């Protein structure tokens, strides 16, 4: 890790568990989508799990997360219970957003998980504000803000990074560069494709890390979060990853060759690579993986059961929570 300590077995198993759990959860979601149990938009994180798992380890329970519509992994890694996430995918009242948000809008106030935002770039100003509150209240918290490389083209990216840097706010901007924004490749969306370089424009440290290497990600995140928490101001961390699946379940993937995807898969996603390394380094072995798979399968089954048997929110409650109960002066 950052202090050079090699990974121990427990740590390695946690990383593996975290990634495998997201992978299997999402595979189940894809299946449930085919069964029309899950509807609307569903954006899978498959291939990108190392980011959520690596990054969340750098946070404590007081820190805040602002994510995107591709946030199942972030939500699970942050510790939102899987049943609550699955129930949300179903639209059940027991879901983590009461069934109103669905896949794109997972929330958890207790875990300071601020969504689940379906407006590309919409979360960046929010993260700046959360960090501003912490700064004004002198709380030693960090806010992390996740967004895709496509979002970096939005004006909100520019305004938010400038504001955060100008005010030296404790926010870590994490650009999940999976090379595509729907069907638009990075080269067709950004004149400068080395995204971390954009940090220069805001007088902000920018760096890049391999998004397929969970250990490197955790390492980079630990370091960056520590620096941000120590008052060093915001940072931009570009994490280079790849989306193995379609953008959403509606996407026929006309914009990239199957061969490209296959080649990337052959290079190995975060799981394949970490499993190979873990075995090589003797952190874990096949039986460990099988044990994890069993635990995860059980958790997923329990989550599906929970979602299936949960209630729908009564229609009569449709207008509840448009406004907050208010003790008028």
């Amino acid at each position, binding site marked *: 890790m950052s202090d050079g300590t090699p990974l121990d077995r427990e740590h390695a198993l946690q990383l593996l568990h975290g990634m495998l759990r997201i992978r299997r959860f999402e595979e189940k979601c894809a299946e449930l989508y085919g069964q029309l149990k899950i509807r609307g*938009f569903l954006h899978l994180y498959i291939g990108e799990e190392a980011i959520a798992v690596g990054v969340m380890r750098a946070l404590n329970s007081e820190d805040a997360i602002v994510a995107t519509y591709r946030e199942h992994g972030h939500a699970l890694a942050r510790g939102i219970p899987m049943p609550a996430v699955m129930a949300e995918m179903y639209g059940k009242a027991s879901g983590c957003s009461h069934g*109103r948000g*669905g896949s794109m809008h997972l929330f958890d106030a207790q875990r300071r998980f601020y969504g689940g*935002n379906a407006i590309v770039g919409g979360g960046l100003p929010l993260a700046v504000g959360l960090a501003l509150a912490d700064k004004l209240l002198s709380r030693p918290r960090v806010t992390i803000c996740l967004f895709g490389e*496509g979002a970096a083209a*939005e004006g909100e990216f520019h305004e938010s990074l400038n504001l955060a840097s100008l005010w030296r706010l404790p926010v870590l901007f994490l650009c999940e560069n999976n090379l595509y924004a729907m069907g638009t490749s990075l080269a067709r969306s950004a004149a400068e494709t080395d995204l971390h370089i954009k940090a220069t424009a805001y007088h902000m440290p920018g760096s890049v890390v391999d998004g397929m290497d969970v250990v490197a990600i955790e390492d980079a995140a630990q370091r960056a979060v520590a620096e941000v928490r120590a008052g060093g101001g915001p940072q931009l961390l570009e994490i280079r990853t790849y989306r193995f699946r379609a953008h959403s379940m509606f996407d026929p993937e*006309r914009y990239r060759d199957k061969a490209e995807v296959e080649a990337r898969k052959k290079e190995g996603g975060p799981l394949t690579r970490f499993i190979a390394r873990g075995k090589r380094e003797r952190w874990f072995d096949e039986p460990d993986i099988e044990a994890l798979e069993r635990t995860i399968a059980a958790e997923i089954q329990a989550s599906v059961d929970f979602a299936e048997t949960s209630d*729908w929110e009564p*229609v009569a409650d449709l207008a509840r929570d448009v406004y907050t109960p208010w003790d008028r002066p």
Partner: protein
Amino acid sequence: MSGATTKTSYREALRAAMREALKADPRVFLMGEDVGRYGGAYAVSLGLIEEFGPERIRDTPLSESAFVGAGIGAALGGMRPIVEIMTVNFSLLALDQILNTAATIRHMSGGQFSVPVVIRMATGAGRQLAAQHSHSLENWYAHIPGLRVVAPATIEDARGMLTTALTCPDPVVIFEHATLYNLEGELASDAGAVDIERAAIRRTGRDLTLITYGGSLPKCIEAANILAAEGIEAEVLDLRSLRPLDDDAIFASVRRTRRFVVVDEGWRSGSLAGEIIARVIETAFYDLDAVPARVCSEEVPIPYAKHLEDAALPQVDKIVRAVKTVMGRG
């Protein structure tokens, strides 16, 4: 309509209109997020990039303000851009450019410039896409002097409105309801330009007028059929143009039926439906035999869960109920 027809979809009709325009006029080009290689978020532009190339079927970065503004600028520069904003939900990011430049520059400059840009966007709810992806903000656009705003609700209009819009020297905003893209039907093989300023009676009826547009039209037709079975003959008026509104058609129909209900997927308060009630009242108050009503969306962010989304939106049963109430048969 006489002569040959072909079966087509709303989506294909839009595409045919764009193809035709791209072929006919070298100044026309299409620009927007994922209109090219992806084929369009709703597959409207599917195949066009292969035919017309990436210069004319131009994928943009996620930069709504800049690429819509660039469309406006390109129109000022002599082009005839079709700008696709993926959905109305994202159009807020470009609203400043649309209001403060596109709609304004002509008047503000004393008539020196025209902005012949066509801005297309998907609108509406009904697909469980939740609060941030289910807006119906046509009323906001219809509020802006300098814009023309249309909402094709039929395959013929999907085919023809864009063609006409491209002949218009001023900015035209086209709202395509996302639930209509799969609509199928017969279209005349020689279908082309249609008027974009007049409302159309989609069903005649003597008892009451259902005034609607866009994605709510099929619901109104269905409601009218149900009502007909119960002896209530509703006329269905499709506004088609939301700015300018076709007052003549509205007043004429309402004067005939003496009763009306407006159906509009926007949130009730400040809806286009409210505007229409106000207009009818201002002009045809004494011609009414009953208090008008509107069926709009509930004033909540649209939820993901299907039963809640259904409850939030105008539905056939709500329209039927509203009509019966206005008819005094509630």
